[in-house]
């Protein structure tokens, strides 16, 4: 094992690591569902970037990056979006139920 060269991949790798740390801090400590959800998405962005660094370092065979981790990240971003959308709808509904609005009708 030897130290990684100072290049774009290493720089963004360090950025990804810091983003994960920041996101983790927010997920655990922030109050309010929305803020925690935001922090979780920040964390996710950092994880994806780390995948991107792995892809960049795996460049070869004429590709600018290893296509497999990149494809994984694209799937990941879409799934993260779905989870976020579902979570937000849940949060909205929860606020609605909590709000003292007996005239709301429905369920």
């Amino acid at each position, binding site marked *: 094992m030897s130290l990684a060269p100072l290049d774009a991949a290493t720089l963004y790798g360090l950025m990804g690591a810091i983003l994960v740390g920041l996101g983790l801090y927010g997920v655990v400590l922030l109050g309010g569902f929305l803020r925690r959800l935001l922090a979780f998405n920040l964390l996710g962005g950092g994880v994806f970037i780390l995948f991107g660094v792995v892809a960049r370092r795996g460049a070869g065979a004429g590709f600018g990056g290893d296509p*497999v981790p990149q494809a994984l990240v694209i799937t990941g971003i879409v799934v993260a979006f779905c989870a976020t959308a579902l979570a937000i709808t849940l949060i909205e509904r929860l606020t609605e139920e909590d709000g003292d609005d007996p005239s709301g009708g429905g369920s």
Partner: protein
Amino acid sequence: MMGLVLDGGIALLTIGIAAWTIRAGDDFAAVVGFVAYGLVLTLAWTRLGAYDVALTEAAIGGGATGVILMRAGARVKPAPAARASRRARIIVGALSAAVAAGLSAIVLLPPQPAPSLALEVREHLASTGLGNPIGGVLMAYRAADTFLETVVVLLALFGVWSLGRDAHWGGRPGPALRPAEGGALPLFARVLVPAGIVIGIYIVWVGADAPGGKFQGATLLAAMAILAGMAGLVQAPATAGRRLRWLLAAGPIVFVGIGLAGIPLAGAFLAYPPGFEKPLILVIEVALTVSLAAMLALIVAGPTERAP
């Protein structure tokens, strides 16, 4: 050298925006911070040479996620922030820093040689008939994943719909599609929506041979549908509509149909018979794009709010 300075700048800016989003005083500010985060991450992905991912991040990470977050930011009453005690903050801060440090160590001490499947992809890419390696991976190696991914999107939509009130089941989705009053928005939408649709189709089309693809293109199409709704140009469709349901199901049905046909014709589920890879993949891509665009737009539109 110049490139490294730019990379350092982008990295610092991204970290700064992330930290600001965590610290922001109110929910609206945090949502703005998050959208900004998505935009700078797009720059980072571009610098990493991952143009496909950059497109996805710009479209879904910054755009679509940002818009549903705004929907929530406008409606969710801010929870009285439970201030964590000083001790908790120190402990969690230290733990988070330790995780970041551990990840940094992995980044700084990478395995040699770097693991990569690029060679394998190169060898087999020709058999898919596609020029875009990432599209090839998504549609050949990981076809089952890509199929399940669209099912996940569909399930998310069902989940969103299920969270509406019972009385509104099958009705029209509400929040994000309520037209704004007057102003420049209707004109803007009239010009931008057609342009955006052309660009969305273009992004799907170039996806076969260059960065782009169905998820990115579908998100652009969905964004245009939402924009038209915001401007009051179109009404949200009733979610019980038969045509809408078929539109949503068409992509997965075509995908699974071609996949099942692969069992007798090519020997495995989701295997493409030799010689027909590219046309079949294109048919799947087109069907999936249309369905995905509808799913994503309806997810952003939110739960049903009006009785059918």
